[in-house]
């Protein structure tokens, strides 16, 4: 027996020892609402209990006051319905096929991009190798810088520095990018005038000679030609001697210029087809060039086109020795350091 007061409440009240073996007296609340009656009331069963009336009053149908928000709710339902229409999701097969298609497209696009990138890189590398950092073709770079003066085209006059400018229309560009220095404005203006000269039929050869001479004067070493007379009014002299006699083409005196290294042939070796191939001894550049001066330039202008002259220049610059074509000055060129030919 416990000595303390006996508790009749709580969960100990349900135990027999808490009440000393006596039965627990039901509380007033339990007597008001037994458990089974409560379950019946909660389930809506009618009964004589006063709480039933209370629950029935609480469960009455809704009044108009309680349903006054019906219009708003209906409008909300109507507004929300178009947005809430369920959309059928793609099946697993559709998703798989779509995924496969996307993967194929992705692969093709990737392959194309990689191919284009590789092609661009390859072509770009070739272009860079061909043009070099200066932008000029590699062949021209070699002809201008690596073996300067190795190929002296006919008609080109060798400057006193021993660097023989190449002949042809591309010479100026080459001299601009090569080691010959920048082309002066006067030479460009002269070239433009020459190129713009319509030229009569009888003076065609002479015009080519003039152009070839201008190509030779494109070098910065020939800036002294600024004072030269206009080539558009050449004297009516024979074609072989007309343009070069108008002024000193180089800084070196014509008569004292020694044979340049690599120039090789004297003027006498000019091609026979050039007519009076022997230039006068006072002609500028003839000894140095060693290729017949104007005579040989005229011959080249007759026999070959302008592009051929450039190709010839390229070929000569790209090789260490060169043999002139038949009918022309057959002077082997051995490069810059070659000893002068006898």
């Amino acid at each position: 027996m416990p000595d303390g007061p006996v508790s009749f409440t709580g969960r100990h009240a349900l135990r027999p020892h808490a009440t000393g073996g006596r039965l627990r007296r039901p509380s007033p609340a339990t007597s008001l609402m037994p458990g089974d009656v409560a379950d019946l009331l909660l389930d809506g069963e009618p009964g004589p209990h006063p709480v039933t009336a209370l629950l029935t009053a609480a469960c009455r149908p809704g009044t108009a006051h309680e349903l006054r928000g019906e219009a708003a709710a209906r409008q909300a339902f109507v507004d929300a319905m178009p947005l809430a229409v369920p959309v059928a999701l793609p099946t697993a097969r559709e998703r798989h096929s779509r995924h496969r298609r996307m993967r194929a497209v992705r692969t093709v696009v990737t392959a194309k991009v990689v191919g284009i990138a590789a092609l661009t890189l390859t072509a770009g590398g070739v272009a860079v190798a061909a043009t070099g950092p200066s932008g000029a073709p590699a062949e021209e770079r070699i002809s201008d810088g690596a073996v300067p003066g190795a190929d002296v085209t006919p008609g080109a006059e060798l400057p006193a520095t021993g660097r023989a400018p190449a002949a042809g229309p591309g010479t100026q560009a080459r001299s601009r990018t090569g080691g010959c220095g920048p082309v002066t404005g006067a030479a460009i203006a002269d070239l433009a005038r020459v190129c713009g000269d319509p030229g009569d039929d009888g003076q065609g050869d002479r015009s080519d000679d003039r152009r070839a001479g201008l190509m030779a004067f494109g070098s910065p070493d020939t800036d002294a030609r600024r004072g030269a007379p206009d080539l558009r009014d050449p004297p009516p002299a024979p074609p072989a001697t007309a343009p070069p006699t108008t002024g000193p083409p180089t800084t070196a005196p014509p008569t004292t210029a020694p044979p340049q290294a690599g120039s090789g042939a004297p003027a006498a070796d000019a091609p026979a087809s050039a007519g009076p191939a022997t230039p006068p001894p006072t002609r500028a550049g003839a000894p140095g060039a060693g290729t017949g001066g104007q005579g040989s330039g005229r011959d080249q202008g007759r026999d070959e086109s302008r592009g051929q002259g450039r190709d010839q220049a390229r070929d000569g610059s790209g090789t260490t020795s060169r043999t002139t074509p038949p009918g022309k000055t057959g002077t082997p060129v051995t490069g810059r350091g070659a000893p002068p030919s006898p």
Partner: protein
Amino acid sequence: MHAVAAGLGADVAVPHARAPHASTAVAAAAPTRSRGELDVALAAACAGDEDGFVALYRDLQPRLLRYATALVGNDAEDVTAETWLQIARDLPRFSGDVDGFRGWASSICRNRAMDVARSRSRRPATPTDIDVLAEQPAPGDAAGSALEAMSTREAIALISELPQDQAEAVLLRAVVGLDAPSVATVLGKRPGAVRVAAHRGLRRLARMLDDGEVGRA
């Protein structure tokens, strides 16, 4: 209360494990619609039928309003309005019968009521002026509605005097018409705890009524 609301999280459909005899109270509350008719109306509303939605509204709105009144008082109409907005938005995705729909709607209503209770605790109340209320006459038979409403209002007011868990258990079981497992899902409790709370609530109501009658006598 708030912890229970937070534990519920999203408004989910309540499993419908209602006892067969529990629909008696629902039939008493909605005599115009039988259970089968409400099931048909629910299916039609889920398919987009407006009349089905109205039938559901007329059946459930008074119950939700009374339940929300016990939770938030005067803000019950706002709570039920937000509840029906969400029901209208999410009804096409609902699947279940009328009992599940009632449980789902009750969960939404309770969550909205908890939101209102939280917001009310953060901002001061602004009582409506009496002149504004006088300019809004109630439609219909004012006298009859007043008598019926007073009785229903008194009953709801008496239930609202119970502790929160007991009042919710009694309202959800007796007024809304949910069974014990559904109420447990809504409240986030076990069914046994819901049963105990409901029994205690009914006993307290009986005591209150007994005291009231004794008081009147």
